[in-house]
């Protein structure tokens, strides 16, 4: 791997870094050429459009001088800098919202909506874009959902879940998997919290939920994979990675885990997270702790590994062996790598792309397995991600959350309350048909292997996960939601908050700059399409939009200003028409 050399030390000053980088890229070129591999792409975008395209993959959308900044730094340094930025806690944001709400209406408090608001606040305004984008990606692989009451009733812990994904998602896969497995919200969602060992007398058996899904969805998947992510075929058939006995064996590992609790491990703590009226106020997000008396001591056999019978129940040792086994399984690197590739760059990565990223997963160049920052860097800098391909099958559909975020970053709004009250966007008919952390099940909003029946995509033998959300209702819902967002602003309506009268939606934009452009339809159309479609549109489309904009008549302003309102209204309609037409296009809805 090209990352065999250690990264330049931070104390190196800029000129040295540049020299080292040049040496490295030369070396890379030589190595690549001699190995006959695809040429390593340059570390720096060649144009603003290329920079914007990268930012559409790596962030919630380019904003402000993001592209310029990326062009100065280059991809690698930009990624390193992003991961070095401090994180903003979603839980603390949620708590601040909770306090703000209670200050005005003591009987109320923050709920799930304030979790989503914090997500949007960070997505739209946070400098740590890559981390938050990774959090979103991980939330669609390691899924918990507020649709489930056990999770949805604990919004503070949902916010903490986002923090955990950002914190552990930038360490190693093994650490992330452990934090996911021990998070009480996952414990509630997949029901291993309070799971008990078998009772041979009565015939009770351990809950198998987490044991099954941690294998199917969070680590190895259903069928054996080659290092490039393609399925191993024996006699023209796939080979299953596990069967019912493996599930039953692993289920025993996930017994005897429950709430963190001052009086642990007493039974009341295990059952209710409280004993004698004393509980830990943070138990909903503090890692679950072992309760040995409820942990199975039987031999636990799964995936060719057997944890021997325990004379003294040792839940932590059982967990260590189980998670090590999952981490080390040959499937895990290609399975997780491909899943992350699909979340960032393309739906149908080539086997070579998966193999390259999985290689970094296996070893980041410094002997570390599962270094997720290195994996993300490998995903974003791979030639297949960087070279703007003209093929008719590259890229991915933009999922609804990322469409809205791209618009709001390209055309920044303010939040009247400072809370970015976008809230629940579940409705496919009237909103996005997608709310972060509200997947219908642990199988996410869409499956990584989704093939949309009767489509050109399916006919081409291609997968399009995000297409699982596309139908005649959601197609109309998106356009109508944005139509209203443009003319009214975005998010919840604020009436009077405390003593401040808003009477408008929370997110608002000052359109002064665009109002200047509105009298020049071609300029307006060019401005809007460049911002939102980057380089992924035709001149003809831009001209078409310009013609439609021009069809809205702007009255000639009268010298006395008496028709100013009508003039402004017409100009605003031109702006909104240009934006709505652009965001309705198939060009905007895909990211090539």
């Amino acid at each position, binding site marked *: 791997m090209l990352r065999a050399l250690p990264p330049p030390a931070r104390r190196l000053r800029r000129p040295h870094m540049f020299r080292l980088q040049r040496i490295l890229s030369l070396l890379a070129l030589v190595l690549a050429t001699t190995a006959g591999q695809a040429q390593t792409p340059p570390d720096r975008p060649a144009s603003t459009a290329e920079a914007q395209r990268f930012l559409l993959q790596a962030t919630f959308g380019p904003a402000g001088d993001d592209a310029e900044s990326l062009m100065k730094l280059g991809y690698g340094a930009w990624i390193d800098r992003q991961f070095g930025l401090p994180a903003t806690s979603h839980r603390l944001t949620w708590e601040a919202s909770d306090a703000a709400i209670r200050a005005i209406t003591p009987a109320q408090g923050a709920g799930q909506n304030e979790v989503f608001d914090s997500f949007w606040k960070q997505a739209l305004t946070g400098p740590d874009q890559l981390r938050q984008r990774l959090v979103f990606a991980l939330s669609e692989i390691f899924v918990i959902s507020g649709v489930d009451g056990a999770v949805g009733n604990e919004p503070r812990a949902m916010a903490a879940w986002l923090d955990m994904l950002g914190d552990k998602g930038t360490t190693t896969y093994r650490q992330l998997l452990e934090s996911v497995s021990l998070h009480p919200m996952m414990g509630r969602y997949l029901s291993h919290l309070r799971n008990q060992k078998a009772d041979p007398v*009565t015939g009770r058996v351990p809950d198998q939920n987490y044991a099954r899904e941690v294998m199917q969805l969070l680590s190895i998947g259903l069928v054996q994979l080659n290092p490039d992510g393609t399925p191993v075929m024996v006699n023209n058939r796939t080979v299953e990675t596990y069967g019912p006995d493996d599930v039953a064996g692993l289920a025993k590992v996930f017994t005897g885990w429950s709430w963190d609790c001052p009086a642990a491990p007493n039974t009341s703590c295990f059952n209710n997270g409280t004993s004698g009226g004393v509980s830990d106020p943070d138990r909903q997000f503090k890692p679950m702790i072992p309760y040995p008396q409820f942990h199975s001591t039987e031999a636990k056999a799964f995936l060719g590994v057997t944890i021997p019978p325990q004379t003294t129940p040792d839940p932590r040792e059982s967990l260590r062996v189980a998670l090590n086994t999952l981490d080390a399984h040959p499937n895990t690197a290609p399975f997780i790598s491909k899943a992350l590739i699909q979340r960032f760059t393309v739906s149908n990565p080539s086997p070579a792309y998966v193999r390259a990223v999985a290689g970094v997963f296996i070893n980041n160049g410094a002997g570390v397995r599962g270094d997720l920052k290195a994996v993300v860097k490998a995903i974003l800098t791979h030639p297949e991600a960087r070279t703007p391909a003209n093929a008719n099958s590259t890229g991915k559909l933009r999922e609804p959350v990322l469409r809205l975020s791209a618009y709001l970053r390209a055309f920044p709004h303010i939040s009247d309350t400072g809370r970015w009250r976008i809230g629940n966007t579940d409705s496919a008919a009237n909103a996005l048909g997608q709310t972060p952390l509200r997947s219908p*099940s642990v199988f996410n909003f869409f499956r990584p292997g989704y093939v949309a029946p009767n489509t050109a995509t399916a006919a081409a033998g291609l997968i399009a996960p995000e297409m699982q959300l596309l139908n005649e209702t959601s197609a109309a819902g998106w356009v109508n939601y944005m*139509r209203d967002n443009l003319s009214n602003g975005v998010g919840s309506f604020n009436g009077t908050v405390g003593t401040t009268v808003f009477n408008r939606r929370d997110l608002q934009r000052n359109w002064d700059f665009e109002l200047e452009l509105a009298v020049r339809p071609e300029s307006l159309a060019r401005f809007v399409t460049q911002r939102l479609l980057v380089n992924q549109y035709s001149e003809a489309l831009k001209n078409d939009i310009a013609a439609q904009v021009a*069809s809205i008549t702007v009255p000639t302003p009268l010298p006395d200003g008496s028709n100013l309102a009508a003039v402004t209204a017409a100009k605003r309609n031109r702006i909104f*028409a240009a934006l709505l037409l652009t965001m309705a296009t198939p060009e905007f809805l895909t990211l090539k």
Partner: protein
Amino acid sequence: MTTTHPSHSARRLFLRQAGAISALAGSGAPLLTGLLAAGSAQAALNPGQYGALVCVFLFGGNDAYNMVLPTDTASWNAYTATRNQAPDSIALLAPGTAPVPGAAAASPSRLGGVLPIAPANAQGRSFALHPLLTNLRTLFDTDRRLAIVPNIGPLVLPTTKVQYGQTSHPKPLSLFSHNDQQNTWMALGPEGTTRGWGGRIGDMIAAGNSRAVFTAISAAGNAVWLSGDNVRQYQVGNSGAIRIGADSNGRVYGSTAVATALNNVVANARGSHVFRADLASVAARSISAEETLRTALAPANQAPFGTPPTAGTYNPANDPLLRYLNPLTGVQATNSLAQQLQVVARLIEAGMRGATGVTRQVFFVSMGGFDTHDLQNRNQADLMARLNHALAYFDTTLGALNARNNVTTFTASDFGRTFTSNGDGTDHGWGSHHFVMGGAVRGGDLYGRFPALAFKNPNNNNFDGSADQLGNGALLPERSVDQLGATLGAWFGVGSSDLLQVFPNLARFDTSARNLGFMSA
């Protein structure tokens, strides 16, 4: 439960439809056929007669062990011994047990005993339904419009317990996996299989539909069941089709030109990227279908579909017809399944009236939340209450439309669940019991042998005393999804050679067993 006044609403609808018939001469024929047939036992659909299949998918894997229960002594003892586990017993209580009002919400004690039913052929045993399936019991016992298909699931061919243990014996791929078994129920293959049997049936009968787009309709998101070789799913919103962009005056931001342009940009892919082609194609279907449904659908807020609001605009969430009694809170609550079935009923009425250019349709609606690994008492009770309410609402509405004989509704789910309890829930299984409802259904009976329930071997998780129960008591299906689909397909008018194409596993079942017999022949 809530009911309408069928005679009143039906008359009003008939008067409105009569107007439609005089305006659209030929297209009224299916309606008249339906009306004439009302009240009499209806055999298989005639050519040209309106017909619909409605799949109610219970996502997550419904615990049918607690939905349809054998109550003969041997079965009941095995059931109680297996399912009465600490900390939260999921063993429902014997018929006749009085509910304990002070017991925890939705606990077996609070619910009271299971509801005995009287199948025409009880197979020498006795049976009951979950305590909250009160309406379904009436539909089964009294109305005889509800049938039960015991122990059904995906199968490649008939399979014994011994054969299950043989690796060489063909079995469905990725058993026990949610997404794959959902896909297998819908499309007879794991995730990635893209031809569903509802859509394939649609292929066979679509020639009679002048508007192919309305052949296969989902009110519940993308469902592979509806996708055939040619038939594509159309997605409708609960309140009908949604118009892209334009307001009721056909304008966007006050401009008709922008509205027209919007339709053009969304529905045309510039270039030849496949994703963009598909995006444009869906948008084009959305626009064209909405143009029809805008005027074709009867209003939701009128009987028999809904209740006119006393004030303000109609909100289905507040319509008492679409609300059910939540057993956890004891108060009425919105029922998403009833809302989906409302738009399906409106589409059926429009279809029968000839307003949508179809004579046969397949519909998909769904509920989620059946993956009851824990808190099963609460979660499943709430789901049973919703299913009970929504199916009764649908049956009542179809009755008012004189459409019961034209519409057959059936349940489906990822899989059944384990017989064993994990302390407060159940895990993934395979075979399951399902309902079929409609005027053309030979209701009030079980169609197929009900499986034997045994005690767990204390030394392992096997159920040696039953030929039907695998590890943890998961049911080995005796009937296949292919047989269920073929039985429905035959009623729907699909010929037997076509059925063998749609259901590739069917040929491996005995000829006499290919039709399960629950539809009037």
